[in-house]
């Protein structure tokens, strides 16, 4: 459908709009282009990160042990940057523009600035990838000083962060202007509220990143003599872990959206859900303390306060969502007549629809594996046992990957027909993709967690210490878990390839308006 200008509705705006025939929402065409470019770039980052994941996974599988040590650490650094930062933030930028403009029927404020933000993020991401692959930044995701990376690594990182800050500012400005212009009445939709939470957390997260990375850059440029590693660790994790809380908030906003899109659910109590988001803004940053629980530079009082008291307020927010979202789905299904027994609504749910299966698998993996393991690891005394073991990696693969990435994948299947305006390619693949990816991530994260419990360290090229002067006897169960993790990697990468094939294939499908909200029928 051709874009339609709507000067009578949006007076004073030069933006161009089209009307989506399925949702009847007005879509700012400028925002739509940005959504497409950011989403496509996110998928490129995911493809790179996934390729590195395969090679890393095949190295940690003791019987395969593919890469040499330098390439293992190099690709582990690149994997962390692409997955934890570039894939997530590019996708979230698309999500923020989608939420602010499409869900609020609003115009995008500062279109040129939004393209500048995209360019900064793109240049930053390309620089970081290039520098890492060139062997100039074998410093891991955390880049702890005194490990040294090329100054270009930090410059790329900072350029990306500046672009991300601009995206958040444009998102907030768009919401404020939409309110002023009367584009929506009353409170903003819950999904946009969740995205606003993500944007607010992103702003102080990126601020913390700047405090860590700018002095480090100055140190690498020789402007200042040195940097305090203890100060870096505290401020870096204000960025490194909080960035994952941005992903968490965005994921929950997407969970609520997918519930509405797939079964027509409505939040059982909007005020409660909004309160849970506010708890995130106030307390979730304390998750950063996970990384500092065995840090010798911090006093015990700080650790006790953050892990024993304040953290529970953040967890309370997650528990509210853990109840609200399935309860909304259950209520919607019961209203449709699926009332039989306690779980008749669950058995009759649309499991073949990729948005729904992604939502429920993501909810399960995050709710029963990622979240609870994080709560346990966040207890100071238990962290003493688990710190820097593969348990930590098992935890965050169940949150950021099995949770957030899977939710983002499910949401993509709606974005392609509705925003890209192309039917999905290979619908049989689409139906199976969340299951394959979810099963791979469950196997991988549980195996990592158990291997870590048996003592496998994280970020380690060879836990078997091949050819060591003093031979190391591994517990046989740990060896088994390392192998299972390798198999889980293969399965998850297969699911990832299915996702990329569907996305790339869909880009080559003939352009047409969506015919149905169900992505398999659109």
């Amino acid at each position: 459908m051709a874009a339609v200008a709507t000067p009578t509705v949006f007076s004073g705006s030069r933006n161009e709009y089209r009307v989506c025939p399925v949702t009847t929402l007005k879509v700012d065409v400028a925002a739509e282009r940005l959504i497409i470019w950011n989403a496509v770039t996110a998928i490129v980052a995911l493809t790179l990160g996934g390729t590195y994941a395969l090679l890393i996974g095949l190295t940690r599988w003791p019987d395969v042990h593919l890469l040499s040590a330098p390439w293992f650490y190099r690709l582990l650094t690149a994997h962390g940057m692409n997955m934890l930062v570039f894939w997530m933030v590019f996708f979230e930028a698309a999500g923020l523009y989608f939420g602010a403009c499409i869900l609020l029927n609003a115009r995008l404020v500062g279109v040129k600035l939004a393209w500048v933000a995209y360019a900064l993020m793109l240049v930053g991401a390309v620089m970081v990838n290039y520098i890492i692959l060139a062997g100039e930044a074998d410093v891991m995701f955390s880049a702890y000083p005194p490990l040294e990376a090329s100054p270009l690594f930090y410059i790329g990182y900072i350029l990306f962060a500046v672009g991300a800050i601009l995206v958040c500012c444009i998102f907030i400005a768009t919401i404020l202007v939409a309110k002023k212009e009367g584009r929506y009445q009353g409170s903003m939709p819950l999904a946009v509220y969740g995205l606003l939470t993500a944007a607010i957390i992103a702003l102080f997260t990126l601020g913390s990143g700047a405090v860590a990375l700018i002095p480090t850059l100055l140190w690498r440029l020789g402007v200042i003599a040195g940097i305090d590693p203890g100060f870096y660790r505290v401020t870096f994790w204000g960025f490194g872990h909080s960035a994952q809380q941005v992903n968490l908030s965005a994921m929950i906003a997407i969970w609520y959206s997918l519930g509405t899109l797939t079964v027509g659910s409505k939040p059982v109590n909007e005020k409660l859900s909004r309160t849970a988001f506010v708890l995130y803004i106030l307390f979730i940053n304390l998750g950063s303390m996970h990384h500092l629980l065995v840090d010798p530079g911090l006093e015990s009082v700080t650790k006790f306060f953050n892990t024993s008291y304040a953290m529970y307020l953040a967890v309370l927010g997650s528990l509210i969502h853990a109840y609200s979202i399935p309860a909304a789905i259950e209520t919607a299904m019961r209203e449709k007549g699926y009332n039989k027994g306690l779980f008749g609504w669950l058995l009759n749910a649309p499991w073949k629809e990729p948005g729904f299966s992604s939502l429920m698998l993501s909810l399960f993996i995050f709710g029963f594996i990622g979240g609870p393991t994080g709560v346990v690891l966040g207890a100071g005394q238990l962290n003493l046992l688990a710190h820097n073991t593969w348990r930590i990696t098992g935890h965050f693969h169940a949150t950021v990957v099995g949770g957030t990435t899977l939710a983002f994948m499910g949401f993509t299947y709606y974005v392609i027909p509705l925003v890209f305006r192309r039917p999905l390619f290979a619908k049989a693949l689409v139906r199976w993709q969340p299951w394959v990816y979810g099963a791979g991530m469950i196997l991988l994260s549980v195996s990592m967690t158990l291997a870590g419990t048996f003592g496998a360290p994280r970020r380690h090229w060879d836990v078997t210490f091949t050819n060591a002067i003093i031979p190391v006897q591994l517990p046989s169960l740990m060896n088994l878990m390392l192998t299972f993790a390798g198999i889980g990697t293969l399965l998850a990468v297969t699911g990832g390839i299915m996702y990329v094939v569907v996305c790339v294939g869909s880009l080559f499908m003939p352009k047409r308006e969506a015919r149905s909200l169900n992505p398999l029928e659109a």
Partner: protein
Amino acid sequence: MEKKHNGWEAPGTMVLVFLLFFWIAFLYFGNWVTLSQAWGMR
């Protein structure tokens, strides 16, 4: 006016959330046992 809800409109979810609580409690106490073993207290 917004319809008033209570949790029992979603009894299946209530059961799932109780399971989640038990699971978290299991993880906590399971780990405490491991911890106390590691510290030689058992």
